[in-house]
């Protein structure tokens, strides 16, 4: 069977189809929505892309918390634009996910019922303005490390969405670092805000790169499909190696007494991560899990009459057009 035929066939998965599919991925070909794909590939992609989309829109909440209180007009506008970018990312990612044959309503339903997850980092509170800097610098920094490899992932719509997302995220990361730098170079009070934010966000940011390789259930398959190119531990090391010198540069202290440059490995050694905390937050017991999910559910429920109105109006307009045409 030629590849063209494989693309067009709706046949049930068979060994040969799957083998040819694997070969296409191995050749770095993109899989497009109408191509044949194993059911597991489709499901895994729905899970990962939707989780990513949900993270974008839930991620709007902790930062949105400071838009009305931003300290200057320049920062207010930049933060508002940043949070709007996250909404935009959510939109492309939901659209990419919809190409796999699931509707936006079903995806929201999964989020609202807790069936689908989002990045646990957003269950931490933003307590001061410096948290906005820390999120940009650390959380977006960790996100980029996770996401850059996805720009060449095998599923075409996801890879293309990620190219745009990554460009914007790297802008956000620089913006966050610049907020931290301004604070670190500011008055003693401002420096204290910056250090306090780094203290609270450092460990959750390391956890954001996912459980250790030994505990990670999806790594092997995801590597094969190029949903992952490096393991969680490799990504985490990359993040630490990249971020520690940045903290040094602005005179902030990373809150890890065991952190030390290792001349032999050419990497930083670091202390133990509190994985109990990680799993507690994943299971719903973080400081803001309930608030975040309620905010999404409330926005959706309160918006129902608005969406219904838009739908009813569009139908009326359509009917009028038809009547006129007749």
């Amino acid at each position, binding site marked *: 069977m030629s590849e063209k035929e494989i693309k067009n066939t709706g046949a049930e998965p068979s060994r040969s189809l799957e083998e040819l599919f694997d070969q296409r991925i191995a050749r770095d070909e993109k899989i497009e929505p109408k191509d044949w794909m194993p059911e597991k590939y489709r499901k895994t992609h729905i899970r990962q892309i939707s989780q990513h989309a949900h993270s974008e*829109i839930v991620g*709007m*909440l902790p930062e*949105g918390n400071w*838009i*009305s*209180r*931003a*300290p*200057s*007009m*320049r*920062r*207010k*506008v930049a933060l*508002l*634009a940043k*949070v*709007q970018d996250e*909404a*935009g990312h*959510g*939109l492309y990612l*939901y659209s990419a996910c919809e190409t796999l044959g699931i509707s936006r309503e079903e995806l929201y339903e999964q989020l609202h019922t807790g069936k689908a997850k989002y990045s646990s980092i957003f269950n931490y509170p933003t307590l001061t*303005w410096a948290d906005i800097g820390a999120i940009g610098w650390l959380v977006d920094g960790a996100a980029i490390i996770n996401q850059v490899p996805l720009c060449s992932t095998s599923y075409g719509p996801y890879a293309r969405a990620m190219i745009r997302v990554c460009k914007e995220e790297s802008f956000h990361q620089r913006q966050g670092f610049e*907020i931290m730098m*301004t604070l670190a170079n*500011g*008055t003693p*009070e*401002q420096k204290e805000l910056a250090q306090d934010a780094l203290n609270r966000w450092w460990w959750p940011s390391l956890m954001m790169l996912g459980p250790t390789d030994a505990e990670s259930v999806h790594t092997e398959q995801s590597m094969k499909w190029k949903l992952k190119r490096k393991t969680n531990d490799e990504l985490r090391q990359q993040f630490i190696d990249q971020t520690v010198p940045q903290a040094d540069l602005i005179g902030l202290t990373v809150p890890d007494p065991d952190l030390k440059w290792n001349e032999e490995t050419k990497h930083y050694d670091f202390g133990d991560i509190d994985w109990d905390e990680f799993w507690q937050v994943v299971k719903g017991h973080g400081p803001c899990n309930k608030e975040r999910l309620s*905010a999404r559910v*409330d*926005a*959706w429920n*309160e*918006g*129902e*009459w*608005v*969406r*219904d*109105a*838009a*739908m*009813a*109006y*569009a139908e*009326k307009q359509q009917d009028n057009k038809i009547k006129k045409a007749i």
Partner: protein
Amino acid sequence: MKKENLIQYIYGIADNALILGQRLSELCGHGPNLETDIACTNMALDLLGQTRSYYQYAAHLSGEKVTEDDIAFLRTERQYKNVLLVEQPNTNFAYIITRQFFYDVFHLLLLQELQNSKDETLAAIAKKGIKEVSYHQRFSSDWIKRLGDGTEVSHQKTQEAVNDLWKFTDELFQLTEEDKNAVELGVGVDVSLLKEKYYQIVGEVLEEATLSVPELKWFRKGGKEGIHSEHMGYLLSDLQYMQRTYPNMKW
């Protein structure tokens, strides 16, 4: 024209953009769907961008040490000159859209005149804003029609918002002493002349949306003189929080 008069005239226009921008930005992340959320944030960004242009100009007029942030964050409630309409809370989406629509129609008419101001900076800011505000008006008018002529529920909620916010529309056409001076010198716009056109446009859209125009004979005013509603203090505590808590710092 006296500098202080011009500055007060600028506040009269710019404070509306700031306060409405602030209200819209409170919504970010809580819209009825992603597309609407993004659109409301866009309008907030436009309004806050316009605010910055006006305030930077007012800061320049005020002297070397004054910045846009001093003007935005460090005045007392009485010194903000926005109309009562724009400070009204985000009660529900019908109120948000109605408030926006009532302001947008006025805002576009205002900028269309202000672009002919003898003050070149104000004329340039107005000219730049026209494109943005035309879009705002299209967005809010479209939504008024969708909500008014959508379902029974949306019709009822929107009619309620229209009835409730109508009393704030007349203030848009009041002139303060500073406004009158600015008009006399060809710098400011005589907003009282926009009234007829305003109610005509608003009436047409409401009619198309199957909503009725309230027959109200009394109106609220005070914002332009700095006498605001109870909502304003809370809005300002949010807006000014950082600058008040950590004075004299760079952010």
